[in-house]
């Protein structure tokens, strides 16, 4: 038995909003792999819950009219990994969420929950940052869409207004077309572990594969919230695809990230692996994009 004060089950999105308005103290529960565990630990014990888990409209991946990819917030990690649209355009997201927890966790965990809990180590978050994802929030005043970087306010805190819930994550067509990316999770175990640092890189190369038309990089656990590394991106954008550019790019991430000492790893170590991961993830992205680098 969980120490739940009351459970309200939403049948659809408007019903969920209504329940959240009626019970302003209630916590939203999606898949529950964070909320229920925290409840068990005592952190959220005795709380009211609004369950949105049964709202099937919030599941699945589809195209929007303008070609953007729409991921329903309740889509589980394993369904994202297996989805043909994801595999075709943004396979790295499927690979990244395939590193969350273990198989059973990936069947219950949702991409909406992974982002709404606001933790920096979420395996989906760095890739979503690196692909300019848009977060769709639905509340009493309608729908608003905000860039994912604005969604994260501080550790554990996201921009969810009262009675609002996240309904989708959108990757605009301009953000995915022509890009190839790679994610590396650095952790102590191969399963059931939280990233010491996670790094997601993607590139768009010129037609002759010689120039970086665009390079994007984002980290988890390099600061209190997932973050991009704009200084590093500026070092590579428009430059020749070469090992010198890759090195310069990787070193520049240190200007942007600010990891901390924690019981998982020391700050110095995180800085070191951030550089190594940037280099490796960029090299792999170049390879996936059909490019080659000297030496």
């Amino acid at each position, binding site marked *: 038995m969980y120490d739940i004060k009351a*459970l309200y089950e939403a049948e659809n999105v408007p019903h969920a909003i209504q329940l959240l308005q009626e019970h302003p103290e209630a916590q939203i*529960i999606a898949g*529950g792999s964070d909320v*229920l565990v925290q409840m068990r630990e005592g952190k959220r014990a005795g709380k009211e819950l609004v369950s949105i888990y049964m709202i099937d409209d919030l599941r699945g991946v589809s195209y929007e009219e303008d070609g953007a990819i729409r991921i329903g917030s309740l889509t589980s990690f394993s369904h994202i990994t297996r989805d043909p649209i994801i595999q075709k355009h943004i396979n790295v997201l499927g690979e990244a969420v395939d590193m969350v927890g273990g198989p*059973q966790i990936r069947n219950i965990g949702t991409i909406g929950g992974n982002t709404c809990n606001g933790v920096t180590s979420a395996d989906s978050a760095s890739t979503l940052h690196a692909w300019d994802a848009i977060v769709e929030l639905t509340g009493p005043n309608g729908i608003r869409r905000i860039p994912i970087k604005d969604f994260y306010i501080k550790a554990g805190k996201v921009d969810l207004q009262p009675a609002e819930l996240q309904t989708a994550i959108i990757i605009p067509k301009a953000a995915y077309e022509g890009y190839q990316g790679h994610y590396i999770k650095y952790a102590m175990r191969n*399963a059931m572990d939280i990233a010491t640092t996670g790094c997601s890189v993607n590139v768009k190369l010129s037609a002759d594969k010689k120039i970086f038309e665009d390079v994007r990089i984002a980290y988890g656990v390099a600061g209190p919230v997932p973050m991009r590394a704009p200084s590093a991106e500026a070092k590579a954008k428009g430059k020749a695809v070469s090992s010198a550019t890759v090195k310069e790019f990787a070193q520049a991430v240190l200007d942007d990230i600010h990891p901390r000492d924690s019981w998982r790893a020391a700050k110095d170590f995180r800085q070191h692996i951030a550089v190594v991961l940037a280099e490796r993830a960029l090299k792999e992205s170049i390879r996936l994009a059909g490019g080659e680098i000297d030496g």
Partner: protein
Amino acid sequence: MANQQYKLVSCIINGKPVEKMIDVRASLTDMLRDDYRLTSVKKGCEVGECGACNVIINGECFNSCIYLAVWAEGKEILTLEGLAGPNGEISDIQQAFIDEAAVQCGFCSPGFIMSAVEILEAKREFSDDEIRKLMSGHLCRCTGYENIFRAVKKTMLRRLGKNKEADAV
């Protein structure tokens, strides 16, 4: 508790349609064990880490300890008890666990076996790395994992008609 909250939950458990009034605070583990006496579903960590409570819901594996019982509404649930034949015979994967000495205290076995069932139901040959990854959501503190891995691999190969390869594992 002054205002206990119950809900009628209808689902199919091991092929049989059932319904009962369930306390909304119950996990699916609580419901399966306490209301349906399916005690193969073990209470281990109860925070979704050890996999001892693993069951198959609509064809996918879930840790029932972090799954609310009310979410079982309309779902098809399979527990280890559902693997038994018409006269209570054990299944091939259970026999393989015995043959390979993949069972010692037995606490993790039902969970492991249900993950193995999901692999076997896919009816295709997985690589060693894939099997290890698909079985990675479970902890075993007795046998180590090699015997369990062999039991799963052998059964997978046998079901695919590759008896010679299975014997060589």
